[in-house]
């Protein structure tokens, strides 16, 4: 009975064809990558010095790298880490950013000042040195790397959400809800945040791509995932020098990142429409 007025979001999301197709892509890529040990034609660290830097062929569908390792295999294996880190850290960063943003915007005054100055401080610290410091204290496992990256990418979300909240809390419905006895927590979570979901979702989808790239910088510095374990990021880094002459080394990991980030963006787009009741066509 109550479902009738509670969950039109999923129904609406299903109508968004691009978002549904993108969900299939992301899900499919995740599954394939997770199953990499079973699906990949070679071992990801199998060096074959007899066939280095080969262009794509039937034997090596994406070619081979400097050490003759099969690129297709490495893209599959790399995805295991990149996708997880990308999505996990986007969730962590967006969650933290939304929390800080909504508290700052809602309470205003001193709380706002404190939280926003904190945001400024974290923003002003160059990311890379901080990443290096943090990751030297932790192990290069997916969860801690996602956490670290998430902890360094909430600031933009916090600022955007705060701005939204400042505007939303002025609208009468907040006071109306308060006049009916809603608590501050309830006002923030049920009444204000859902109205700010658009920019939050957009920020989250962008964060996925950023996180994948950030992870690669860490790996490049030897602080993230260690070679020979591949990630899309460190594969791109490795291929930088030979981009002009051996383009497949950059194209395939790059395409993989593009596909995931683009799909996540489309999903975000669909979510945004689905969560905004005024964008729904006709009767629900």
């Amino acid at each position, binding site marked *: *009975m*109550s479902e*009738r*007025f*509670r969950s*039109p979001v999923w129904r609406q999301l299903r109508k968004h064809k691009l978002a549904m197709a993108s969900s299939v892509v992301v899900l499919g890529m995740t599954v394939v990558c997770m199953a990499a040990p079973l699906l990949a034609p070679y071992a990801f660290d199998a060096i074959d010095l007899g066939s280095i830097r080969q262009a794509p062929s039937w034997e090596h569908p994406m070619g081979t790298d400097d050490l003759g390792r099969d690129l297709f295999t490495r893209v599959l294996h790399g995805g295991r880490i990149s996708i997880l880190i990308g999505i996990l850290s986007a969730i962590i960063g967006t969650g933290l950013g939304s929390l800080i943003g909504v508290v700052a915007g809602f309470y205003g*005054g001193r709380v706002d000042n404190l939280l926003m100055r904190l945001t400024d401080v974290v923003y002003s610290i160059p990311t890379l040195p901080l990443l290096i410091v943090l990751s030297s204290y932790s192990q290069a496992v997916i969860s801690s790397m996602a956490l670290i990256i998430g902890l360094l990418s909430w600031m933009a979300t916090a600022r955007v959400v705060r701005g939204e909240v400042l505007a939303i809390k002025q*609208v*009468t*419905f907040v*006071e*109306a*809800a*308060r*006049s*009916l*006895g*809603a*608590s501050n927590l309830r006002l923030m979570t*049920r*009444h204000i945040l*859902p*109205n700010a*979901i658009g920019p939050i979702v957009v920020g989250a989808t962008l964060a996925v791509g950023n996180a994948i790239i950030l992870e690669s910088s860490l790996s490049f510095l030897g602080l993230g995932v260690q070679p020979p374990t591949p990630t899309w990021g460190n594969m791109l880094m490795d291929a930088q020098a030979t981009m002009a002459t051996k383009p497949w080394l950059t194209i395939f990991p790059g395409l993989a990142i593009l596909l995931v980030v683009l799909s996540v963006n489309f999903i975000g787009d669909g979510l945004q429409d689905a*969560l*905004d*009741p*005024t964008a*729904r066509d006709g*009767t*629900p």
Partner: protein
Amino acid sequence: MTRPVLEVRDLVTRFHTDEGVVHAVNGISYSLSEGEALAIVGESGSGKTVSALSIMGLVPEPPGRIEGGTAILRGRDLLQLSPTEWREVRGREIAMVFQDPMTSLNPVLTVGYQLTEPLRRHLGASRHDAVERAREMLALVGIPNPRQRMADHPHQLSGGQRQRVMIAMALSCRPSILIADEPTTALDVTIQAQIVDLVKSLQERLGMAIIWITHDLALVAGLAHRVAVMYAGTIVEEAPVAELYRDPKHPYTQGLLRSIPRVDAPACGPLPSIDGQPPDLRMDSDACPFSPRCRHAVEECATGKPPLDGVHDDHRVACIRWRELGPDPGVGT
């Protein structure tokens, strides 16, 4: 009609802004009996909304602050409540309907969710009971097809329907007081009349007391039992509605009534208006606040704020000269 449900005494609310202290409400007192409809009338900035927000605990703090007075609801002083106690009172004891129905419902939540939220919160109703009750409330406020409307979002309703939903939300927990803050200002005239009729009939059925805040004296004629006229943060006159119309004592009330077009009066020239501007509320003067605009002002008016003086039992007026001025020839019948 006799037992007071709310007693407001000497309520003072001020806003401490960068440009100075705004004296929004300067010691107003009134009482509200059970089942009574009190209209608070005044122009923009006269403090009528702030006085209502004060007894809801909704004055934004800072910059606002309630600096004095009491508001006794069923033996409890509202102004001394803790935030938690306030939440129990809001929606349960006192509920409010706001001016603009287009913005007073949350656009991303369904009508059903917003209606059931206070029910589940205050009455601890189960989801099923809350839905049932919410549907009854929608039917009660004259929303056709309540079952379907519950699944709608606010943008799918018209302005009048939204205001009906707001009224349903406000009354769902059967509060003893309903504060209506110009609930018809944003609606067109025919809908205005419907909303007024609706509130009136709901009052007869549910028996709550109403504080109806408006700048429209004509609107309250058919609705209120008593009218309090506010000017510059003070109540200048308070009387039963018929008496206020028939025999207004305060020069400001007389001016207000003269400025309303009448069907039964011969149309001759433009409607009279009150010259001048309302005072700057940042000045805290001792004079009668209306004296600079008053046609009958004398020197004495500048020497002290006139107290509310009883014309008789339930007619009070804050003017030192009301006795000598007599009935206003321009109004009344």
